[in-house]
């Protein structure tokens, strides 16, 4: 830094390239060029260097690998789109797709409704505001695997807390892991427990920017609180809703830690893969079967799913409260 400042003062900087002189009458030379023209690029270069190595390179190679057939002996053979056609007719892959979409749906819809409700409650005048907000956000600061372990125990068939509670209402013990829908519900509650409070805080932030006049006017016109919530709050939250829904889409479609932990750290996702997600399928194919090509193809199909899912959700959310 001090070198730069000195160079600016002294009239004879070492090796001043002429271009610099020609452009700037004061003539700060190479260092000045470095400071003004090159500095922005230098400042962003660490990010883009990493992006090249850990972003572009893997993405490109995943595409390249997906065109080859790998086997356990380590040989690679060109198959073109063979992996993709095989994946699209592989019932195990479709099973993972259905599971991923199913859990995404079961988890996300109640989560967003609950988050809205919770944000609305947080937006009222309450005592101990910070304490309440911290309580709501507490699940976010626990670790995913730890939470999944605890929930797995809570959902235990024989001594689980949840079956014990259900017993009060005369419900027979449910084998949460063994069947498809119960396992989806169990995993969805883990996700919702973690993210509902976070989304509520995001919604709350957006709610606080809605002009209060709108509510005053509405209440003078005799609109009930419920009506105000659906007619004013929800439509005004649309930009935030898009953020939250897209976030949930990406997170939900790449689900991995919860279902893996639910089955004791195994990516098979239950005896019949009844809760194996696409991410788990990718890991199973790539790192248990060592079929890198197949796993890479599945990764690209997952990406396609995320793009389509994001687009659909984006269009859906835009319609909330009518088109504007």
């Amino acid at each position, binding site marked *: 830094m001090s070198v730069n400042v000195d160079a600016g003062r002294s009239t004879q900087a070492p090796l001043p390239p002429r271009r610099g002189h020609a452009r700037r009458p004061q003539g700060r030379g190479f260092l000045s060029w470095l400071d003004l023209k090159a500095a922005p690029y230098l*400042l962003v270069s660490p990010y883009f260097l990493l992006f090249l190595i850990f972003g572009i390179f893997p993405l490109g*190679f995943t595409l390249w690998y997906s065109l080859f057939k790998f086997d356990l002996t380590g040989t690679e053979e060109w198959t073109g789109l063979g992996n993709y056609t095989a994946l699209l007719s592989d019932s195990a892959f479709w099973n993972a797709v259905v599971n991923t979409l199913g859990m995404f749906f079961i988890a996300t819809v109640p989560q967003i409704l609950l988050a809205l409700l919770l944000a609305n409650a947080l937006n009222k005048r309450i005592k101990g505001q*910070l304490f309440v907000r*911290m309580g709501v956000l*507490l699940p976010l600061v626990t670790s995913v695997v730890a939470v999944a372990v605890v929930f797995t125990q809570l959902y235990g068939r024989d001594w689980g807390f949840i079956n014990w509670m259900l017993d009060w209402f005369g419900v027979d013990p449910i084998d949460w892991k063994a069947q498809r829908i119960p396992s989806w519900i169990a995993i969805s509650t883990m996700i919702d427990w973690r993210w509902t409070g976070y989304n509520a*805080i995001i919604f709350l932030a957006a709610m*606080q920017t809605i002009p209060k006049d709108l509510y*005053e006017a509405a209440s003078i016109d005799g609109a009930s609180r419920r009506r105000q919530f659906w007619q004013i709050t929800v439509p005004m939250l649309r930009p935030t809703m898009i953020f939250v829904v897209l976030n949930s889409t990406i997170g939900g479609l790449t689900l991995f830690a919860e279902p*893996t932990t639910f089955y004791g750290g195994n990516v098979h996702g239950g005896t019949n893969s009844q809760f194996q997600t696409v991410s788990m399928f990718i890991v199973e194919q790539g790192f248990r079967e060592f079929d890198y090509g197949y796993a890479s193809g599945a990764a690209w199909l997952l990406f396609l799913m995320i793009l389509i899912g994001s687009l659909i959700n984006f269009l859906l959310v835009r319609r909330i409260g009518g088109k504007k």
Partner: protein
Amino acid sequence: MTTLTAGNRPRTQQGRKKADLWSATPWTKIVLAVTIVISAFPIYWMLVIASRTNKEATDIPPPFLPGGNLGQNIQRVLSNEDAHYLAGLTNSLIIATTVTISVVLISTFAGFAFARLRFKGGKVLLLLVLVTMMVPLQQMGIVPLYRLMVNLEWIGTLKAVILPYLLNGFGVFLMTQYTEQAVPNELVEAARVDGASTLRIWWNVILPAVRPGMAVLGINTFMLTWNDFMWPLIALTPDNPTVQVAINSLNAKYGTDYVLIFSGTAMSILPLILVFVLFGRQIIGGLMEGAVKA
């Protein structure tokens, strides 16, 4: 206008109505109380089981209060030969700290350039950052990254899990937004006229102003890195794990030894809870501020 009138006449009917609109109803209180109980319960339950014996953990009705076996159970976790728990805890601390410092620095540099320096291609590069935020790089790049690490003979080393995490588009985006809002352009130009170099402007003008943004990004990055599971599970070996991988080993090998596993999980969330209790106000403030700007 309307607000002004309402504010000037707090005792009119209008004023009272405004107060009613934002007051907590019993329904509000119930919703909040239930939420807090549900939020806290699994964590409380973790402590209850971690301080009991395995026999008590499977009692019907379940135990509701902590027992006296916590110390003993923690001992068992730390001395467990399959989990390498202490190594995992240390590794997670090293990884999360290194990643956090690097990401915050890299993002602050890039955010400064994107927000307050004009350069050719800057807009396009920023757009590129935004687009890549949508790509789930972890899933998309897992196979080539694994093979790269195998070729470099980095599998099982901390380098393998630190380097890929330094790529954080969200950080660059956040710091760009934050710098734009916290540092007026005039300030940068004034410093420039005074003859300050770019680096000096970064150090003397930008850095002091964006510190709160850096804190939010830092806490966020620390938590995400601490929590990550999929890539460490593949890139590390069980004898040199992260804390999540160590818990996974316990969970996989001692499935019904609940007190052992729960003591492990309880210790793994302790650092996060501590950070949260200390910086809760800033975390929530930053989250809400970021939500409105994004």
